[in-house]
Every structure is written in structure tokens, then in C-alpha cells.
């Protein structure tokens, strides 16, 4: 972003000097205004979901669910170490549920353990799985959409299919270019 932001800003402002010199000031205030409005909407969106997700975290459901995935994950990541598998599984499960507060520390710890064993294949795989998103329900998108009266059901469906597709493609690519 440190490259994109100044580049686009400079180009746009220089360009509008020729088109309409007053446009820059207008754009700045419109942009600021929009940012404030969106942030207010997002406070509501996030507060609802961080609240509900925290009920889930407090009940320990994430840890319980992550036990189920430990075995398949051991095989997928080619690791025999129990501690690594546990962290990997916790990361994947928490990401699926959207509990990022649990997912990120577990992911960093799993990466450190994989790094120690020099398992760069595992490191690539975990990074690709996380950055292709495996969240089952795009909660903030759904909330934002429904605040405008949008149809949530088709979005749930297409998001699920797309995010599944993207992650599968990512995993296949990692396996092919091992």
C-alpha cells in the first residue's frame, strides 16, 4: 500500500489539474465523509459478530472441533509432530468459524514449529490455505448486505462455493509445485 497509495494519489491529482482543478478538494471531502459513514455501519456489524463469536470462543467449541481435523491435517501437512498438528488444526478450525483472535496466534505458532523442522512445504501450504480464506460464513459481508436489505441466501451459497474452490485450487498448486 505504501507504493500504491502515493502513486495513485499523485497521478490522480496531477491528472485532475487539467480536467477540473476543483475536483481534488471535493473528492477529499466526499471520501472522508464516506469513510465516517461506513465506519459507523461497521461498528454495528463488527460488534454483533465479535460478540457472538466470543460466546463461541468462551464455550471452548473451537478447540473441541479442532480435534476432529487433527488426523487429516497431519496427513495433508506431512508432519508427525502432535504439537504442530494441534496448532495447525486449531488455526484451520478457527479460520473456518471466523474466530480470528484464536486463528492468528495458532497459525503463527504452527509456522514457527514447521520452520524449526525445516518443513517449507508445510509453511507454504498453511499460508496458502489461510490467504485463500476458508471462512464458512462471510459474517461481516452478510451483515453489511442485510443492512441494505440484500438477499442473504444466494450470497451464503456462492461465497461457500467460491471459497471452497479457491482453497482447493491453492492446495493443488502447492502439491503440484512441491
Amino acid at each position, binding site marked *: *500500500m505504501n507504493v*500504491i*497509495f502515493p502513486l495513485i494519489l499523485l497521478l490522480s491529482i496531477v491528472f485532475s489539474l487539467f480536467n*477540473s482543478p476543483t*475536483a481534488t478538494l471535493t*473528492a*477529499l471531502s466526499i*471520501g*472522508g465523509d464516506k*469513510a465516517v459513514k*461506513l*465506519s459507523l455501519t*461497521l461498528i454495528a456489524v*463488527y*460488534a454483533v459478530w*465479535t*460478540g*457472538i463469536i*466470543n*460466546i463461541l*470462543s*468462551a464455550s*471452548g467449541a473451537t478447540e473441541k472441533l479442532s480435534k476432529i481435523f487433527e488426523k487429516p491435517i497431519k496427513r495433508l501437512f506431512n508432519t508427525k509432530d502432535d504439537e504442530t498438528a494441534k496448532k495447525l488444526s486449531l488455526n484451520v478450525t478457527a479460520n473456518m468459524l471466523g474466530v480470528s*483472535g484464536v486463528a492468528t496466534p495458532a497459525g*503463527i505458532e504452527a*509456522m514457527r514449529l514447521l520452520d524449526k523442522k525445516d518443513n*517449507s512445504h508445510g*509453511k507454504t501450504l*498453511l*499460508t*496458502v490455505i*489461510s*490467504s*485463500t*480464506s476458508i471462512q464458512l*460464513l*462471510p459474517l461481516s*459481508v452478510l451483515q*453489511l*448486505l442485510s443492512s*441494505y*436489505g*440484500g*438477499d*442473504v441466501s*444466494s*450470497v451464503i*451459497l*456462492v*461465497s461457500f462455493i*467460491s*471459497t471452497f*474452490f*479457491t*482453497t482447493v*485450487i*491453492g492446495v493443488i*498448486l*502447492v502439491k503440484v*509445485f512441491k
Partner: protein
Amino acid sequence: MNVAIYIVPVLIIAVILYALFKKVNVFTAFTSGAKEALPLIYTIFPTILAVLIMSELFEVSGLSAIFIKLLSPVLKFFGIPTELTKLVLLKPFSGSGSLALLDEIYKTYGVNSYISLSASAIFGSSETTFYVSAVYYSKCKNKNAAKAIIISLTATFLGAVFSCFICKFFY
């Protein structure tokens, strides 16, 4: 098809029942979780502001139109509507920034349009690649994330192409 509308309410029922079963103070857990939203907004507000100003300037300067005109043959070839160009390009760099663009798309094209549906699918199908790899590799000795980044970006782009394709059937 309409099983999907039951997912969110059923999920919330399940979360509350399981928490009660585990003797969690549901009210306290909810409020202390909700409290995290304000610091979160506090962190992402500057990014949202920067991206929206950038997007606004890009638009009014007429650069956006030229840029999209140049890129549209490529994106059209892959079946990505030109209205989604900026979202597809920004997503790997900034999550909150692309949420701002998503919001713009909802407002401009209406929430129940093909463009908005595809935009939601694209937004949900990937994470902020550059941020994820920076954070995940932070505690590693071998920090070479090039392969992971290239594969993630490829998968993300193919995911966007796929999203635009399947949305045609659900719109």
C-alpha cells in the same frame, strides 16, 4: 435453495445452547466480545479513509475510466465484469480497503444485482494475501514467502474468475 436462510439463526441457537451447556456466562461473553469492535474500527478507520479518498480521486480525475478501458479486454477475457476491476486488484493488499470498495459497489449497483453478488463472492473467497504472509512468516527464521504469495495470488485470481462464472447461475 432456501435452506441457506436458516443457517445463521440455527447457528446462533447452537452457539447459545452449547455455551449454556458449558455453563458460560452468555451475556458477559457477548458484551466483552462486542467491546472489541471499537478498537477494531479504530485500527481500520485510517485505511478505510485512505482507500476511499484514493478511490474518489481516481474516479473524478478520469484516470479510473482510462485504466479500466486498458484492462477491460484482459478481464473480459476471463469473464470478470469491469465494474469489479478495482476490487479484484485491491483485495490482496488491503482487507478493510476492499470492504470499503464492496460497500461502494452495493450502493452503486444495488445489493441484489449480479455485480454485487459477484463482488460478495470475490470478497469472501480470499484473504489479504500480503498481510497474511507477512504475519505468518513473522516468527520464522526462513522468511522466504515468495512461493506462497505467488500461489495464493494465482488461486485468488482463479477464484475471482470462478466466482463471476457461478454467480451467473445464482443471480
